[in-house]
């Protein structure tokens, strides 16, 4: 081959020039193609538009808007003092670092320099002070984690929080969805189109009930973010219609799907289904105060023995969920979950014996109330429970009402035997403070156990993970021994994305899914 080439080259000077020219042309072509290819890859990695199918938000004020669709909107526009990642880690955001005093009562945050709001005004300590004082004025749900505090501007570009008692979850409180940092110069925070944050995206268009369009913030502080040029939230109330929109390519990301909906998407080549372990769980609770059905601890045990959690998990989730152990601290909390605490297996005969021991009657009758949530899943669960309890000497009448009606009519806390759906929280302390300490605002089981109250208070002031885990383990043991609730399972969060999506990690609270480093390939 080499000889042959030499022969060709040697034939004449013209041939040699032609040959050299051809080689140069070919090399140029190859180089051009390579550069074009590189350029295309670079375009793949950033830019483009992305659409999310989601229910329409109602209350866009970050301080009070509680639901996924509202958090999703605000997560686009606003930043937080710290970021809480999908796996519950705390990372710097508008605060670059922070220090905690030795007594655990003073938190000093150093703020990021050169950050601006979308209207061009500068971000500074006064905005943080304004935001957190506003949470107090509005009695925002954020206070459940933050507790009592004062906030003031510190030296230089810092803010200082003083809290009345050590609070191991205070940092989580500063990064929760209600604590989006607002501009102290603004006065309206729930208009949507005027939302003015420091976030990665700016509101371009907002049509209530129809869509919201966000454009990339060119001055965003995070290097390389956002990767997308444009994000659209398309408001679709019906979950099945959201699935249709994903299959039609109208949207790229949907979440909070039922198992049926995920199964429908599973065999599709253009879509990837997502599953994240969460602490979202239903609670079946029985009133336990004086004169109520479960005043006697033996009656609480009877209901636990009467409930087959494995069957519920198998029928509703095909085994995908984690069977609960009748306390709200699930395996998603890692070290705080104690798997050694076992609950009694389904034993209807033992349940019957306990019921007869307590009441002196062969059978008891109850009305089980609950919301019609998660695509009929709670109604199915109630049906399974009714049959399980029937074998355990408990005759059950089911009363399932639409979710909005159930929680809004003010009677769900009065219900003696009821089902409640609890969404995922970043820390277990939230559930305990909200529902299980004496005088908790949602003490739906009317359970006033002083020891639990003391342990929860102790956990709040314990920063050491091991010590805190030990306290939660003690609390879980009390729940096993005398708790008036049944947690049948901890549900996975199910969602789906188009296959052109890259870099999306679904948050257990899916409205908080971070889209800043998400990209699409065209």
């Amino acid at each position, binding site marked *: 081959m080499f000889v042959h080439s030499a022969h060709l080259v040697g034939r004449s000077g013209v041939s040699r020039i032609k040959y050299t020219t051809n080689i140069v042309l070919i090399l140029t072509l190859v180089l051009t193609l390579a550069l074009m290819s590189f350029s295309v890859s670079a375009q793949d990695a950033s830019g483009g538009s992305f659409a999310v199918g989601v229910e329409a938000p109602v209350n866009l004020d970050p301080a009070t808007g509680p639901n996924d669709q509202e958090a999703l909107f605000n997560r686009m526009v606003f930043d937080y003092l710290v970021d809480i990642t999908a796996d519950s880690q705390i990372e710097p955001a508008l605060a670059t670092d922070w220090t905690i005093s030795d007594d655990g009562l003073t938190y000093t945050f150093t703020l990021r320099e050169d950050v601006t709001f979308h209207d061009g005004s500068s971000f500074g300590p006064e905005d943080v002070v304004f935001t957190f004082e506003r949470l107090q004025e509005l009695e925002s749900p954020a206070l459940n984690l933050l507790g009592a505090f004062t906030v003031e501007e510190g030296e230089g570009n810092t803010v200082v929080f003083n809290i009345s008692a050590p609070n191991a979850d205070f940092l989580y409180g500063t990064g929760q969805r209600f604590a989006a940092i607002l501009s102290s110069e603004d006065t309206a925070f729930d208009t949507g189109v005027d939302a003015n944050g420091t976030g990665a995206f700016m509101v371009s268009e907002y049509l209530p009930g129809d869509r919201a369009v966000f454009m990339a913030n060119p001055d965003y502080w995070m290097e390389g973010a956002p990767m997308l040029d444009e994000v659209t939230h398309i408001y679709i109330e019906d979950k099945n219609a959201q699935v249709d929109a994903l299959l039609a390519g109208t949207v790229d990301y949907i979440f909070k799907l039922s198992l049926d909906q995920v199964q429908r998407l599973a065999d599709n080549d253009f879509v990837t289904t997502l599953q994240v372990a969460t602490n979202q769980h239903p609670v079946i609770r029985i009133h336990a105060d004086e004169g109520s059905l479960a005043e006697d601890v033996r009656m609480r045990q009877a209901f636990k023995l009467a409930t087959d959690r494995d069957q519920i998990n198998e*029928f509703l989730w095909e085994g995908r969920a984690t069977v609960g152990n009748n306390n709200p601290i699930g395996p998603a909390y890692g070290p705080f979950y104690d798997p050694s605490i076992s609950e009694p297996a389904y034993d209807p005969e033992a349940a019957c014996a306990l019921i007869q021991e307590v009441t002196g009657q062969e059978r008891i009758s109850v009305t089980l109330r609950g919301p019609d949530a998660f695509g009929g899943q709670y109604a199915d669960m109630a049906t399974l429970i009714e049959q399980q309890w029937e074998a355990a000497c408990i005759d059950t009448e089911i009363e399932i*009402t639409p979710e909005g009606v159930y929680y809004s009519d003010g009677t769900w806390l009065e219900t003696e035997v009821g089902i409640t759906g609890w969404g995922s929280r970043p820390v277990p302390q939230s559930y305990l403070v909200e529902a299980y300490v004496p005088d908790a605002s949602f003490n739906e089981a009317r359970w006033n156990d002083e020891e639990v109250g003391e342990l929860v208070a102790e956990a709040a002031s314990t920063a050491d993970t091991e010590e805190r885990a030990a306290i939660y383990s003690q609390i879980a043991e009390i729940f096993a021994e005398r708790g008036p609730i049944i947690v049948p399972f901890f549900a996975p969060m199910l969602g789906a994305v188009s296959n052109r999506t890259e870099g999306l990690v679904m948050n257990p609270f899916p409205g908080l899914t971070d889209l800043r480093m998400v990209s699409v390939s065209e």
Partner: protein
Amino acid sequence: MTTTNKVDVGPDAPRPFPLRALRTILSILRQLAERPLSLIGSLMVLVFVLTAIFAPVIAPFDFDQIATGPRSAPPSADNLFGTDRLGRDVFSRVVWGAREIILLPGIATAISVLLGATLGMIAGYMGGWVDEVISRLFDSLLAIPAMVLALVMLATIGPSAAGIVIVIVLLYTPIITRVIRSATLTVRSLGYVEAARLRGESTLYIIVREILPGILPPLVVEAALRFSYAIFLTASLGFLGLGVQPPSPDWGRMVGEARNNYFQAPWTMLYPALAISILVIGVNLLADGLRRIFRYEGQL
């Protein structure tokens, strides 16, 4: 064979009343049988009524029995209409469901007809302030959209079988009252009513013996139509989750529950939806046949 479109329900019919009623019923049935569409409608309704009565014999499983087969399994020899998400037999649930979909609207319609006919005759015959009070009260109720009123009431009193009956009665009594009041206004000016009044008959006697037979045609047609709408309303409320409670085999609720997995298990939605459609069409054909028999041309 000679057919007649005139039913002996007027004031000239022979007495005693029970015999006359029997003759009337036989006459209606005969004339229904002579009209193909009316016959089909009557047979459709009859099939569902028989299904409701003999549900324990027809259904192979209890309506709430889970795991009768694999979950969300398609129709097979063991499960004729397939199974739902909990493995319940859809055929058995549809069969048992016929009882509720006929019984609840049936009871509610009967109460509505009783109240509506009574109030309508009183308002129409007595007139004056009695008519004003009844008419204005029901006009205000009729001004509210039926479904909105139903949703608000059920959200207030809670979803249950009794709640559905109350809602239907409250919704349909004003409508029946208005129809019967109009019919009564026509009948009250007839000579035989005037004669009874001149004879010194009591108001109760005149309403029951003279006016009631005269307003029976619109009343029967209206009752059949209201029954049809009541079935649809019951199913709609079930679909919205405000109807009869689980694990009851309410057809509307079955369709609502199946909505989330109709792509995986379309049979769970198809059969209860078909049953609702067929029953409503059957009742409507029956009502239309009755209207033709009575030559009732009033507002339906």
